[in-house]
């Protein structure tokens, strides 16, 4: 009886679960990272082959001390359409690559390290799609993984203390949590304001966009450098206001912009936002649920301790914390920066 039932079940399941014809047949995504051929072996050194172009961003998203290495790959002969302020246009077949790794000692980021995951965004048939590859313990291969995973990372922190922390690798749906805008998935890093900065290449300090132009990244020569947007390094020497706004753009504005997942709240944290209420100044938490804590406004000028922004950046409770999913540790630098920024505002008070 049992056996018969089991066979019935198997047959039903197998027939019901047959793969559909043609699904994913056009995709160039592979199950192993090595099959993409992005890096010169050994792959763990992350030295790209010709045509895989590295870049850095000015205001990265905090990811629990992970160091990130970024690359872009274009199809042969294709280029990116540049815009000084708006989104760039990428050709069909573009791949963006981001590897998350932990130095054994955070004070020596160039020293020994462990690669944890490599995420790619692939632009095919007019849509960006995210994939996640998890590195093996031997650091010889990374394998495509769909549902997300918790892993443990070990390192010496900036005080030299041994740390063993849980690190979360997202599932591929969660790419949309940051990269989604209305019904589209969009790249976040490669745009003018994030890449317009100096970098060292071949021992020389050069503007990164000009360097990328010389790597044939763009369809046209770049002109009008003075009109290019830029975000300052949040840890650099720009003004407090400029650094705080840059950090908010890098860490919050992917959701908190029109069309983003945080758009339902009406809070807009783009570097370009000028309306005080949209920026959170004296803005009430209309639908934050317990995320509001016992506080009444997103930003109370002069009072970080009364500001919901600080309460949420300083939390790791899943229902309170911001950003929602990309960290399990508080970004102490960002917290201090935004606290200093709010503290420096004139304490005008908020209307009752």
């Amino acid at each position, binding site marked *: 009886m*049992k056996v018969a*039932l*089991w066979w*019935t*079940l198997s047959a*039903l*399941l*197998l027939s*019901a*679960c*047959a*793969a*559909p014809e043609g*699904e*994913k*047949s056009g*995709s160039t995504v592979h*199950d192993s990272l090595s099959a993409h051929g992005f890096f010169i072996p050994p792959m763990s050194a992350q030295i790209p082959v010709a045509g895989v172009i590295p870049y850095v961003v000015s205001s990265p998203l905090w990811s629990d001390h992970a160091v990130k290495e970024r690359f872009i790959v274009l199809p042969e002969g294709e280029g990116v359409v540049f815009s000084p302020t708006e989104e760039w246009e990428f050709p069909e077949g573009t791949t963006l690559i981001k590897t998350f790794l932990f130095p054994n000692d955070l004070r020596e980021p160039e020293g020994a390290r462990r690669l944890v995951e490599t995420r790619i965004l692939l632009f095919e048939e007019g849509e960006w799609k995210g994939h996640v590859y998890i590195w093996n313990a031997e650091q010889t291969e990374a394998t495509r993984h*769909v*549902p*997300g*995973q*918790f892993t443990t990372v070990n390192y010496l922190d900036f005080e030299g203390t041994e740390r063993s922390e*849980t690190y*979360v690798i997202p*599932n*591929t*749906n*969660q790419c*949309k*949590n940051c990269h*989604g805008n*209305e019904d589209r998935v969009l790249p976040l890093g490669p745009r003018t304001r994030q890449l317009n900065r100096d970098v060292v290449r071949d021992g020389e300090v050069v503007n990164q966009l000009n360097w990328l132009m010389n790597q044939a990244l763009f369809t046209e020569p770049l002109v009008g450098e003075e009109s290019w947007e830029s975000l300052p390094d949040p840890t650099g020497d720009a003004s407090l206001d400029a650094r705080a706004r840059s950090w908010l753009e890098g860490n919050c504005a992917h959701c908190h912009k029109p069309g983003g*997942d945080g*758009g*339902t709240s*009406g809070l807009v944290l783009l570097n370009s936002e000028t309306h005080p*209420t949209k920026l959170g100044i004296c*803005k*009430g*938490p*209309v*639908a*934050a*649920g*317990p*995320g*509001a*804590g*016992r*506080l*009444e406004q997103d930003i109370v000028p002069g009072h970080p301790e009364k500001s919901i922004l600080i309460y949420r950046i300083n939390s790791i*409770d*899943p*229902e309170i914390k911001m950003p*929602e*999913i990309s960290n*399990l540790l508080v970004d102490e630098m960002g917290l201090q920066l935004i606290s200093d920024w709010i503290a420096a505002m004139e304490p005008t008070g908020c*209307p*009752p």
Partner: protein
Amino acid sequence: MRNSNRLIGGLVMGSLLGLLACGESEKFIEEACADLAGCDVILCPSDDDLALVQTAFIEAEEGSTVCLAEGIYTFQSELSIDVANLTVRGTGMDKTILDFGEQLVGSNGMHVTSDGVLLEGFQVLNPAGDGIRASDVDGIVFRALKVLWESEGDKGNGGYGLYPVQSNHVLVEDSVVSGASDSGIYVGQSTNALIRNNVAHGNVAGIEIENTTDAEVHDNHTYDNTGGILIFNLPDLPVKDGKRANVHHNLIENNNRKNFAKTGNVVALVPQGTGMFILASDSNELHHNTVTGNQTLGVMVLDYTTTFFDSWDDLEFDPNAEGNFIHHNTLSGNGEDPKDVAKALPIPVPLPDLVWDGCFDAEKDNSDGSLTNCFFENGDATYSNLDLCNDFADLDFDITPVTCERPPLESVVLE
């Protein structure tokens, strides 16, 4: 193509192994067989439920059905659904249990971002934040679900149980929500929502309809919440001017739970013992409801005045509640022990069953009476106009000026 085959094949193997593991008894197998019709994938509790279930949700074909066999599944992370027309089916709200008690990541138990999803027959237990959120979708069904926070009256519980937001064509039916620190069933900034035959108890608000247009809320039972059913509009939100909630044949009783929302949220202002209220929303119809034993008030209609609420910075926001129609409700035993802000009202206890705050915008033309909130044939229910905006100067108990009728709202029909 080959990739796709292998992945789905792996899932099938996983399902069969899981089925054997959790299906030792013949009874289980028979039940599983009975449920098999229409299931494209069947999952059972495993050593790694997150990988098993989330993979199935991501790899599922559009329009397919993923079934979750009876048992307890545990998750440390939010589950997400982004496949159109996916059905997720459990074997019952007390049988298939998705336990989020150890959740580390994600502000919801489950998050739906694709159109046409149907969720039925399972429980979301102790999610860190909200229970099930569907955002910006066209077509979502919540059927025979339970969202439960076991810690009673705990402000650390998540805000919303079943939570469609900025969505169209919403159906919530035959479900149970308990323990939400804001609202059990919360329909926000949506259109065409049908909320029926649900039970909400032990929440701050049982059911909230916020900045939503064309909702029908009927045959629900709300009890032991701070407030039973709340219909309101809030300022500074992207979707504005919700209206036309048709709320009827609900049982709203004994909503006397102490408010346990965190301050800072609007719902934290709801007095303990509230049956129903309409706040700053127009053209709603409340009829044939039974409202009983709510110790502060039965039904209240009020403006978004700065007496109670923060000021706003939204030029399009209309704070007045206008053109509402409250008729043929049965009210009894309300207002007998007013709590919170209602204690300060200068009227004798028991407070009236029906209360209008008496606020209106004198600049608006109401010569045809279309802005009047009508109260009509509510049995022997008592009434008061508080004249709140004039500091209770002309407070009275005469229902005659607001005894009027309006055309009934139509039922919400979902495709």
